[in-house]
């Protein structure tokens, strides 16, 4: 679809309308043509629809918290429960150590970015088929749907940060000087999560069995991101280490924890993770763009 500036329509030639005609605005020309395979990301169009993106995310957040007395508590329940489970079964029973930071705090700091990632991917993957009526009845850049899915997960993340602050205070741990790196880590994680969510959203429209695999993938994903529950021991240079680097969240979770609680930030891993995240984002969005024209027909 090309958008170009056309000439101003000749309003003078209109047969006199009874109400004042619309003020001549610069004409926007849109051409609708048969679908053609790979398309680049429509950033400008998405930017023009940024308010819609906000409203879709706002809607998700509002709906989640309406009619729930505990509302906000649900956001922190998941990471809090996992923290307890890990502390009991990994630390106490399994004997895992976490260095100079108490294990519950160690686990919670890892669970926060992971939960954000996992929720964004899950929400994103189901976002398009959940918006069936929107897709078939109105036009807007379709990427807005999986992108907006990050909204409620992000709000949950912010709320859980409060819990983290409380636990940090209780353990007497002050944020390290590297705390300003944390937002960067979160931004990179968002790219990866949105990219994967977008890819799955597109796949889910065409192939409906994908939705049943996603919860399973996320469960496996958490265990495949050992930095959430395991302290990195000097295994650098081994094959296992390089394999784990392929999972961008592995490095990002470790970096997030280090930026908040102190300890060395694994810059090499972060670099690789950033590159992978950008690649996942671009690949996910491009696949989505390739198939989005068929959504209204298939959904």
């Amino acid at each position: 679809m090309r958008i170009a500036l056309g000439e101003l329509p000749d309003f003078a030639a209109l047969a006199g309308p009874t109400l004042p005609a619309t003020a001549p605005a610069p004409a926007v020309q849109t051409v609708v043509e048969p679908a053609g395979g790979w398309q680049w990301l429509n950033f400008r169009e998405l930017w023009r629809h940024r308010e819609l993106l906000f409203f879709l995310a706002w809607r998700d957040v509002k709906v989640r918290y309406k009619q729930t007395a505990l509302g906000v508590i649900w956001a922190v329940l998941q990471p809090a429960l996992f923290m307890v489970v890990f502390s009991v079964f990994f630390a106490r029973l399994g004997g895992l150590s976490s260095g100079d930071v108490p294990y519950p705090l160690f686990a919670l700091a890892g669970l926060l970015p992971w939960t954000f990632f996992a929720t964004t991917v899950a929400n994103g993957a189901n976002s398009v088929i959940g918006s069936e009526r929107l897709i078939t009845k109105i036009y807007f850049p379709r990427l807005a749907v999986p992108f907006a899915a990050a909204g409620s997960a992000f709000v949950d993340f912010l709320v859980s940060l409060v819990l983290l602050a409380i636990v940090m205070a209780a353990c007497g741990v002050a944020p390290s000087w590297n705390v300003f790196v944390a937002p960067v880590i979160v931004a990179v994680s968002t790219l990866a999560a949105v990219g994967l969510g977008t890819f799955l959203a597109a796949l889910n429209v065409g192939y409906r069995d994908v939705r049943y695999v996603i919860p399973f993938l996320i469960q496996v994903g958490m265990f495949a991101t050992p930095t959430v529950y395991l302290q990195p021991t000097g295994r650098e240079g081994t094959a296992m280490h390089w394999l784990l680097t392929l999972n961008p969240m592995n490095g990002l979770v470790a970096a997030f924890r280090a930026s908040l609680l102190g300890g060395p930030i694994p810059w090499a891993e972060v670099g690789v993770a950033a590159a992978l995240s950008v690649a996942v984002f671009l690949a996910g969005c491009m696949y989505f763009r390739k198939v989005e024209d068929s959504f209204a027909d298939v959904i």
Partner: protein
Amino acid sequence: MTIPAIRVEHLGKRYTLARHRDALARYKTLRESVSGGVATLARRLRGRTPEAGEEFWALKDVSFAVRPGEVVGIIGRNGAGKSTLLKVVSRITRPSTGRVVLNGRVGSLLEVGTGFHPELTGRENVYLNGSILGMSRAEIDRKFDEIVAFSEVGRFLDTPVKRYSSGMYVRLAFAVAAHLEPEILLVDEVLAVGDAAFQKKCMGRIGEIGRSGRTVLFVSHNMNAVAKLTTSALYLDGGRVAAQGPTSVVIQQYLAADGRLDPVWARPDPGNGSDLTITSVRVCNPDGRTAARFAADQGLCVEIGFTVRAEAHSQVSFRLNTNEDGTTVFSTALSDQDGERGTVFAPGRYTARCHVPAHLLVPGSYHLLVAANNLRGRQFDLIEQVLHFEVSEVGTLVTDHRLGYVAPLLKWDLETG
């Protein structure tokens, strides 16, 4: 020479109907695609061509142009491709051939209440729906009071929309849509819901929008509305342009072309994927034989066949409309029989038969509008403008030359003195 606001060139839209697949299982699965891919490969290796699905052209070689400020009606029988045309022009779906050039901002109303969420309040839904339709937040702020006034929702504005009656829901939804101000407006007949007073208000609003110099494409079955609101019209038949030009001329051609009597209709396309799909409609004699002409002193039956894919709580109904101007003579529903607002249907195939008594209809030609509604007003399926049958005069004083829309035989008493 003005640049057209809308220019459609050789537009075509093709759907592929799947064969060898259970009609109820519309969605592909990865497993099927993989095994299907292997099967196709195997077939190709054995030297046979892969099976192609059946093709269904919803639109074929449609071309027309609309000048800025024109209000164009799009008419045609059910399945002619009107809604598909609107979908392509609205950019919801891509054409298979041809192209559309639009000069101006486009707003489309294919449904009222798109994006409304039942848990949000009326106020929140106004912002959400307005944003979805393409209005900026500043614009919604500016028009907010007007929208609320138009909708007459008043003090319920801050109640969750799930508590609204279906009438309030539709009024609020239309109020937002009515304040869209794009240069090009595409309207599918969203006015089939709502009470008579509200429908008049909606028509009035569409008329205002048309007179304000905006370009409007208006799909409708109501010839009255088309005649009143539009200056030119486009008649689609079977996906092709059958006529275009000044409204009155095109309407005449449409009514004349519709001279063919048509007592049976069966769904040609795979359906819209909802849980309840209407598959056939027919009119017949009380003894069950399909017929297209009925005597005024004879009853008739309307038979509606439908398929339920997943359990559905639904109302099945139809309206009997005159061909001349689409006026509804009466509407009736399955609930007439048992007083229940809807029936819960288990998955399966059903046939609902309605018995229209003798001495009810005035001689003339009629068509039906058949609907299956969810109790919230959202529709499972809607078949507009289907069938064409006639009620003919019998030659007796009692049945012929009667005025009005119905011809009942009523009880009269006569006293002397």
